[in-house]
C-alpha cells in the first residue's frame, strides 16, 4: 500500500471509528432497546412465507388484535391469493359471510347491512379515529395494513451498511414481536399513570396498549397427534402475527423475490457475455491493429 492510500485509509478509519463511537448516544436518546433479531422464513433472496404460520397469525389477528386494530386495505379475497395464507376460496367466502358489511344506499335511499363477500375489505373496528380514541382512553390503535413496514428501529453505523449485503430488512416484524414479549413491571422510580403500561422495547417505554397476549390464549389447530404443532405461547403468537402482518404489508413479497432471482440470473449471464464481447471489440483498433 502506498503512502497516499495508506493515509487515506487511516483518515477513513478514523472517521468511521468516530462515527461508530457517537452512535450509542443517539440510541440512548431514543429510549428503546434493540429488538432481538429472529429468523424468518420470508427473509433472504429465497424467502417464502410459511403458509401454516400465516394462517395461525391470521387467527391471532382475528381473535385478539382485530377488536381494536383495523386492516382496512386488506380484502378477504387476499387471504386465498397465491403467496399468502392461501386459504381455499370456499373458506374465504365462509369467513367473509360471518362479517356484517355496511352497504348502500338501496332503492329507498337507506344504508343497510349485508353479509360480507370475498371482495370486501376487512371492516374496521371503529367508525373513525375519534371513536377509537374515545373507546381507548385517548390512544389510537394503528391500522395493521402496512404497519410492519411503518415500524423500525435504528440499525446504526456500520450495521446498516452490512444490511445491504445480508439483506436484513425485518426490523418491522422483529420490533412487533419484541413489543409483544416486552411487557414488564416498571423498574423502580418509574410510576405509570392510568392507561400506561411499561414495555422494554417501546421507544420511551410507555405504551397505552395493555399486554394483549398471554400463554394459551388462542387455540391453534391440532396436528394428527392431537397436539398443536407449535407451542401456544406469547412468543409463538407474536412470531405468527408479526409474519402475518408482513404479508399484509407486502402481499407480493414472494412474487417479488422469485422475479428477482430470474432477473438477477439473466443480468449476470448477460453481463458476462457483454464483458467478453467488449473485450473482443476493444482488442483491436478500427484499422485492425492491436489496441495495445
Amino acid at each position, binding site marked *: 500500500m*502506498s*503512502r*497516499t*492510500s495508506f493515509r*487515506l485509509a487511516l*483518515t*477513513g478509519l478514523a*472517521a468511521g471509528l468516530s*462515527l461508530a463511537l*457517537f452512535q450509542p*448516544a*443517539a440510541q440512548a*436518546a*431514543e429510549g428503546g432497546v434493540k429488538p432481538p433479531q429472529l429468523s424468518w422464513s420470508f427473509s433472504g*433472496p429465497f424467502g417464502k412465507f410459511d403458509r401454516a404460520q400465516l394462517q395461525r397469525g391470521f387467527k391471532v389477528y382475528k381473535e385478539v388484535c382485530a377488536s381494536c386494530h383495523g386492516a382496512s*386495505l386488506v380484502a378477504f379475497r*387476499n387471504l386465498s391469493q397465491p403467496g399468502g395464507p392461501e386459504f381455499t376460496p370456499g373458506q374465504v367466502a365462509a369467513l367473509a359471510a360471518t362479517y356484517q358489511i355496511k352497504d348502500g344506499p338501496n332503492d329507498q335511499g337507506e344504508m343497510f347491512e349485508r353479509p360480507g363477500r370475498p371482495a370486501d375489505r376487512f371492516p374496521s373496528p371503529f367508525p373513525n379515529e375519534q371513536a377509537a380514541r374515545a373507546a381507548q382512553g385517548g390512544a389510537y390503535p*394503528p391500522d395493521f*395494513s*402496512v*404497519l410492519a*413496514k*411503518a*415500524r*423500525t428501529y435504528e440499525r446504526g*453505523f456500520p450495521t446498516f451498511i452490512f*444490511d*445491504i449485503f445480508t*439483506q436484513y*430488512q425485518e*426490523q*418491522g416484524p422483529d420490533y412487533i414481536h419484541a413489543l409483544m414479549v416486552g411487557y414488564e413491571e416498571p423498574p423502580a422510580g418509574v410510576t405509570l399513570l392510568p392507561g400506561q403500561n411499561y414495555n422494554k422495547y417501546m*421507544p420511551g417505554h410507555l405504551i397505552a396498549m395493555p399486554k394483549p397476549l398471554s400463554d394459551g390464549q388462542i387455540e391453534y389447530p391440532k396436528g394428527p397427534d392431537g397436539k398443536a404443532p407449535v407451542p401456544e405461547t406469547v412468543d409463538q403468537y407474536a412470531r405468527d402475527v408479526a409474519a402475518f402482518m408482513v404479508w399484509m*404489508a407486502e*402481499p*407480493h413479497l414472494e*412474487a*417479488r*423475490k422469485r*422475479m*428477482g*432471482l430470474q*432477473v*438477477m440470473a439473466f*443480468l*449476470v449471464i*448477460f*453481463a458476462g457475455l*457483454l*464483458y467478453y*464481447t*467488449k473485450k473482443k*471489440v*476493444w482488442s483491436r*483498433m*478500427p*484499422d485492425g491493429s492491436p*489496441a*495495445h
Partner: protein
Amino acid sequence: MSGHSSYVPKTGIERWLDARLPIIRLAHDSAVSYPVPRNLNYLWTFGGILVFMLVAQIVTGIILAMHYTANSLMAFNAVEHIMRDVNYGWLLRYLHSNGASMFFVAVYVHIFRGLYYGSYKAPREVLWILGVVIFLLMMATAFMGYVLPWGQMSFWGATVITNLFSALPVIGETIVTFLWGGYSVDNPTLNRFFSLHYLLPFMIFGVVVLHIWALHVVGQNNPTGVEVKNVQKDTVPFTPYATVKDIFGMVVFMILFSWFVFYQPNFMGHADNYIPANPAATPAHIVPEWYFLPFYAILRAIPDKLGGVMAMGGAIVVLAFLPWIDTSKIKSMSYRPIARQLFWMFLLVCIGLGYLGAMPADEPYVTISRILTVLYFGFFVALFIVGLFERPKALPTSIADAVLASAHGGSAARVATATAAEPNVKG
C-alpha cells in the same frame, strides 16, 4: 469534435430523407462515428447509465401516474392500491422509488468523476454548467416525487423544505404561500407538486439534450486530461467501442438496481413514510432522502435560518463556478499531487456530512457538521490557491502514448489510483 460527417446514405429513401431532414445523419454522427478517446475508464459509462435511468424513471412514472390519485385524502391509499391491486404495480412503484435513489448514485459518481478529471475546465464550462442545472432540476423533481405518497415524511419533509423559502427577506412569505397554494402544506400543495413532478423530468430531458450537444461539440475529456491530438491514434468510433462498453456498464448497474428493487425495496426509504400524513403529529426526526443529507447537514450547521439556506444553496451553486475557481491548467488530478489529496478529503467530507444529515441536531453532531461545512467550502478555496503554485507531474504527450505506456509499463500508470502509488515518478 463536430467535424466532417462520415454518413453516406445507402438507399434511395435515405438519400431522399437526408436532403429534407438529415435525422439519420444526426444519429449516425452522434452515436456511430462520433470519436471517443480510447483511454476512457468505466467511470465514463455513467453518462449513458444516467440517460438510461432518466428514461426508466419517465416510463415507470407515466404508468404510475395512470393509477395514482393526487388528492390528500386518497394519495396514500392510491399508492397502496398500486402496490396491492395493479398488475405488477409493486414492481413499477419499487422501480420508480428505488430508481430515484439509483439516479442519484449515478449522478454523484458522474459529478465526482468530472471533479477528479477536471471535466469542467475549458472548453467544457458550458457543458459543466448545464450539468449543474440538471442536478438542480433532479433535486426538485425528486423532492416533489417524495411528497406524492403522502406519508408522514412526505408531509413533514415538504413542510420543512418549503418553509426554508420563508427565510428570504421581503418575498419569502409570499413564495411559501405560492408553493403551498394556501397557508399550510395541504391538498393544493400535493396537486401542484404532482403537476410539477410530471413536468420537470421533461425539462431535465431538454437540458440533457443540450448537455449531450455541448459534449459532442467539445468532445469527451479523458483520464489524462490531454485533449485529442490525432483522431486516428487517440480515438475510437462510438459504435461499436463505446456502445458495447456503455451497455456492459449499464447492465452491471442494473444488477445493483435490481438488488434493491427485488430484495431491499425499502432500504433507501424511511419507515415513517408508511404512516399516512398527519398534520397533527410531527415525527421524532424529520429526515430527507439520503441524497439530500449532505446539504441538509450544511443547512442545519448554520445557526441562522437565512444563513443556513444561503449556505445550502451556495453548496450547490458554487459547483457552477468551479471552472473559474480552479486556477490550475492541468485537468486530471492524476497529475496534480496536492489537488488529488484535496479531492479525496472532499469526498470524505461529503460522506461525513451525509451521515450527519441523518443524525439528530444534537451535540456532538452539530459541532462536527460545522467543521465539515467549513471544510466543504474550504475545498473550493484550497483548489483556487493550490492551482497557483502546485507543480504538476509530467503529462503524457498524447492519449495514444498514455495507452501504450500503461500497456507496456504494467499496472503502474493504468488509472488514477495507480498513479498515486508512485508519487515521485516524473515522466
